């Protein structure tokens, strides 16, 4: 199998885009792979290029100037044959051998048809981002309850609001842009329930003062929300959702200092959609099986360990963006540039973007990481959250495993990690493989350790027929010969 490029980048969000563009500028050939139908990741999620006039979303975005500049750079490189852009390609496994990495993907541009595509390169950069972290509550499995990211994705990707009367809940600064986006599209945002207290940020003044851009961004959302009469309710949480075939109400409670609901403070609010999110879980599925060391991010999740040049502990493997710790688009962009700088240096190519710009990127990374740590401290998972779970609350949505069953596994069998809970209860054994319930189950049985996902050797479902054809074609026997 020949080399596809000097570098494969998986993930075309801010980190992957910045990395690809930087590596291309340094003269490398790059294959950029993403499961989406447009570049931009979740942060700059867009409809596919051909549909943009019909689905205007520019008003929902920030930093579009940068996004457009990155896209222009990609187009130029593509026209020169140096960029192999693989949209709607889903990577199901990455393997490493003496000469580099093989990225095993399926091309789903004509989904549901799928075609196997293997990409090879001596170096690999993983920038697969993160997804919303969930803390279950009674009724969270009702239709109309979405992740905040899900509401945002429908809005940015399809111009669709999932409801007309929406309550948002959870913790973290991401609630604000989603609320602002929905409000600006005419949705009545009836409540934004933030579990942290109103002064949580003020206890972390240093990193905040050093990030005036974040103040400005926050103020912009604040103005939008004020204009639409949206109220932020600090130290509250959505503790239950009601409805039969669709959510029709939520119960909102004030939270005690430990994050448990204060008895007697619950009030019922009628809604037709709900968005919830408790920070983010890094998407480490491609990194864990390669044997990368992980480290504690400080926000409850394990992240991939990288050096100051974004090198993982596996030679030739680099990581950038939320897989290294959740911290926003500016951090991701800077990490992407740094990672590509290291790829170039390790490749023996000319130092682009140059020492001064690399130093600037390093400074940005340091500042943004400090800010992210401050945010994580200001928006922790409330320790008492599990008090709003009833025994019949579904924790694992796929296998419909209840909180009672998980608690029993802990009490009767001493289950002390989510893998053990899975073996005993099936929580995490279904379609999503614990991606959604894993962090919550972990919080229930091992709240004092950061959540590290179970190893998932198959990163996305793929039909057995496609795999069988690979074997019949003999394309994949290289590995077998090694055995």
């Amino acid at each position, binding site marked *: 199998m020949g080399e596809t490029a000097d570098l494969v980048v998986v993930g075309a969000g801010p980190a992957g885009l910045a990395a690809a563009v930087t590596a291309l500028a340094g003269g490398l050939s790059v294959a950029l792979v993403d499961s989406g139908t447009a570049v931009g990741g979740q942060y700059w999620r867009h409809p596919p290029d051909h549909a943009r006039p019909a689905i205007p979303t520019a008003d929902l975005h920030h930093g579009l100037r940068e996004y457009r500049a990155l896209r222009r750079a990609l187009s130029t490189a593509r026209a020169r044959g140096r960029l192999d852009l693989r949209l709607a390609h889903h990577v199901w496994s990455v393997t490493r051998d003496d000469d580099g990495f093989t990225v095993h993907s399926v091309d789903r541009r004509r989904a549901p048809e799928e075609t196997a595509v293997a990409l090879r390169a001596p170096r690999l950069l993983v920038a697969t981002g993160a997804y919303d972290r969930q803390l279950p509550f009674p009724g969270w499995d009702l239709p109309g309850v979405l992740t905040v990211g899900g509401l945002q994705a429908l809005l940015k990707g*399809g111009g669709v609001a*999932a409801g007309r009367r929406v309550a948002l809940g959870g913790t973290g600064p991401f609630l604000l842009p989603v609320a602002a986006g929905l409000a600006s599209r005419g949705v009545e945002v009836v409540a934004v329930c933030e579990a942290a207290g109103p002064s949580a940020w003020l206890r972390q003044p240093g990193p905040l003062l050093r990030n005036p851009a974040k103040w400005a961004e926050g103020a912009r959302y604040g103005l939008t929300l004020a204009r639409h009469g949206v109220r932020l309710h600090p130290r509250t949480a959505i503790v239950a959702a009601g409805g039969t075939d669709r959510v029709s109400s939520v119960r909102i409670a004030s939270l005690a200092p430990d994050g448990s609901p204060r008895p007697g403070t619950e009030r019922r609010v009628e809604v037709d959609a709900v968005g919830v999110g408790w920070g983010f879980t890094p998407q480490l599925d491609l990194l864990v099986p390669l044997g990368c060391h992980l480290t504690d991010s400080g926000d409850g999740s394990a992240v991939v360990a990288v050096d100051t040049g974004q090198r993982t502990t596996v030679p030739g493997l680099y990581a950038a963006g939320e897989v290294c710790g959740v911290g926003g688009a500016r951090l991701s962009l800077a990490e992407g540039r740094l990672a590509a700088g290291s790829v170039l240096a390790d490749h023996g190519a000319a130092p682009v973007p140059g020492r001064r710009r690399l130093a600037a990127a390093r400074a940005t990374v340091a500042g943004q990481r400090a800010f992210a740590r401050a945010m994580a401290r200001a928006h922790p998972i409330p320790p008492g959250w599990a008090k709003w779970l009833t025994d019949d609350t579904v924790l694992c949505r796929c296998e419909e495993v209840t909180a009672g069953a998980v608690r029993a596994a802990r009490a009767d069998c001493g289950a002390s990690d989510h893998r053990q809970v899975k073996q005993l209860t099936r929580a995490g054994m279904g379609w999503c493989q614990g991606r959604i319930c894993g962090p919550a189950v972990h919080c229930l049985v091992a709240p004092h350790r950061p959540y590290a996902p179970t190893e998932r050797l198959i990163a996305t479902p793929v039909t057995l027929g496609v795999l069988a054809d690979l074997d019949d074609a003999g394309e994949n026997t290289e590995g077998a010969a090694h055995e």
Partner: protein
Amino acid sequence: MSRFSVDGEPLGFTEGQTVAAALVAAGRVAWRTTRVGRRPRGVFCGIGVCFDCLVTIDGAVGQRACLIPARAGMTVTTQEDDDG
């Protein structure tokens, strides 16, 4: 507006929307029934992680409606998990 069919009924969509976005735009948030509890489900994470939004598309089962762009003439069948 282009159309695809959902369980035999036509559904209009804007070119570029996913199947899930088109369904939600039409006011539908649930289209799957779970295997164990027979509960209604629809779009949850919206980005391909949770698999709540599975539908059958042109005969292919287990497709994530939130990832697949709607195409004119597509046949979408909502999924009872026991139907396979």
